[in-house]
């Protein structure tokens, strides 16, 4: 399905969905795409094999009284299980569906898929999406949604505004899906997959918000004890927003923001990304070039995929571009690290130390392109 270079337009996804049922033989694992989910019967030997199968499983369908279980698992992980000495066999469970979850190119490029295959979900961490809200009813997000708070009103029909913090724009739901869409059999998958998402609705249905509301949402993120604040927004400098960022950083929040879309330009990073308490994220294209719209400057700390990014919107999926899309890639990675016990400062340093040099200027890529797998100490040899 995903070969590392392709991303999927809506059309190709729809086409794939209509032909999703595939029947395969005994060699089914070999013919499955590494990102496809498969249902397999695993025979194990001893507790370590049992535990390994459990850890690798997306869901457990059946546990037998004898040493075997039926699980749903990405094909990549099934192959890894098959190679373990404490696993006796991995067999495809009869007919299986090639489920139709798409791995967006950005998820593949930052090797978040490698993290998923190794059981890294970000479970236990909390990310505030400080944005236009999050669709409270999206099947690819709902299970990850925690509390939300509306600093501006959701303006739409009751079907759209079920919660005060529901998304009346699309932008916040798109960013939420990039950071943390579920790893399931539909739609997309996020950088993290089981972080708890909290919608701080500060941008109105036209996508703008006041300094005061944004500062209040940053304060709320800190007071709630959340780990990460993801800010796909920007503008001119604001003393109140700067103070709020300091307040949150002092209380352990990792703040991430979009560098801005004023490119091509130099020394033009917007705010809050420009504050030293905030990780400023520039945007790349699928060929690792700097996206032409991306702002650049000394404040840029990391680069992440930002052009033609496919993710969730209320009621479906769509492809958007912007440093707004780059920002939640880093936020999801921050959530993964903080779920593993990193503090905000440690996570920030770790993301810098493990970023991949893609040959852009320092003002364009900062420390480099986000590498989720290496940040988590995993081998990302598929690059």
């Amino acid at each position, binding site marked *: 399905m995903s070969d590392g270079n392709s991303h999927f337009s809506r059309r190709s996804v729809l086409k794939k969905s209509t032909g999703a049922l595939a029947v395969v033989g005994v060699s089914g694992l070999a013919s499955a795409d590494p990102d496809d989910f498969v249902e397999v019967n695993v025979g194990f030997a001893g507790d370590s094999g049992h535990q390994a199968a459990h850890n690798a499983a997306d869901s457990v369908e059946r546990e037998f009284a004898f040493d075997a279980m039926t699980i749903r698992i990405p094909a990549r992980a099934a192959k890894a299980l098959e190679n373990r000495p404490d696993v006796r066999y991995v067999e495809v469970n009869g007919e299986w569906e090639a489920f139709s979850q798409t791995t967006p190119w950005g998820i593949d490029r930052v090797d978040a898929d490698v993290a998923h295959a190794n059981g890294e979900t970000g479970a236990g961490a909390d990310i505030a999406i400080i944005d236009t809200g999050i669709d409270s009813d999206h099947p690819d997000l709902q299970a990850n949604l925690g509390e939300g708070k509306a600093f501006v009103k959701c303006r739409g029909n009751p079907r759209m505004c079920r919660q005060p913090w529901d998304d009346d724009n699309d932008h916040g739901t798109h960013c939420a899906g990039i950071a943390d869409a579920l790893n399931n059999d539909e739609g997309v998958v996020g950088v993290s997959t089981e972080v708890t998402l909290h919608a701080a609705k500060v941008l109105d249905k036209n996508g703008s918000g006041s300094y005061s509301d944004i500062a209040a949402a940053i304060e709320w993120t800190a007071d709630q004890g959340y780990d990460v604040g993801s800010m796909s927004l920007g503008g001119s400098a604001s003393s109140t927003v700067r103070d709020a960022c300091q307040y949150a950083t002092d209380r352990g929040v990792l703040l991430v923001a979009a560098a801005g879309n004023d490119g091509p330009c130099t020394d033009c990073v917007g705010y809050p990304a420009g504050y030293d308490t905030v990780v400023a994220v520039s945007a790349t294209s699928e060929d690792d070039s700097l996206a032409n719209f991306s702002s650049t400057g000394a404040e840029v700390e990391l680069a992440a995929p930002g052009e033609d990014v496919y993710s969730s919107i209320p009621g479906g999926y769509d492809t*958007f571009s912007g440093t707004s899309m780059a920002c939640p890639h880093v936020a999801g990675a921050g959530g993964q690290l903080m779920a593993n016990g990193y503090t905000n400062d440690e996570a920030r340093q770790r993301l810098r130390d493990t970023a991949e040099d893609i040959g852009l200027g320092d003002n364009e890529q900062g420390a480099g392109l986000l590498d989720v797998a290496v940040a988590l100490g995993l081998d990302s040899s598929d690059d």
Partner: protein
Amino acid sequence: MPLDSSLDVTTDRDVQFTFIVTNSGADPVDLSFSDALEADFAVLDDGSERWRFSEGRMFAQMLGSETLDPGGTATYEATWDDPDSGSYTAVATLEANETECEARAEFSV
């Protein structure tokens, strides 16, 4: 670019601005935006700025686009919540890339 525009101002307890951009040409016009600020509004008092919509606000950093067919329109709105009484000039500016489009209107509070 063959764009016509108009600016309506409605004064109540607040001041509401409605900026309508019309494609007056024979071909479709593509508008592209760098972020969620698609039109800005300013209030001038004898040439000095009293209020600006974008002042004190931040914007979603996502590209936007819109195609206006011949005769097609796009409408942008903003509200000045706490106006002081006086006579003013309102200026609306389309913030699309590589496009100049502006409309003015006089009003009093």
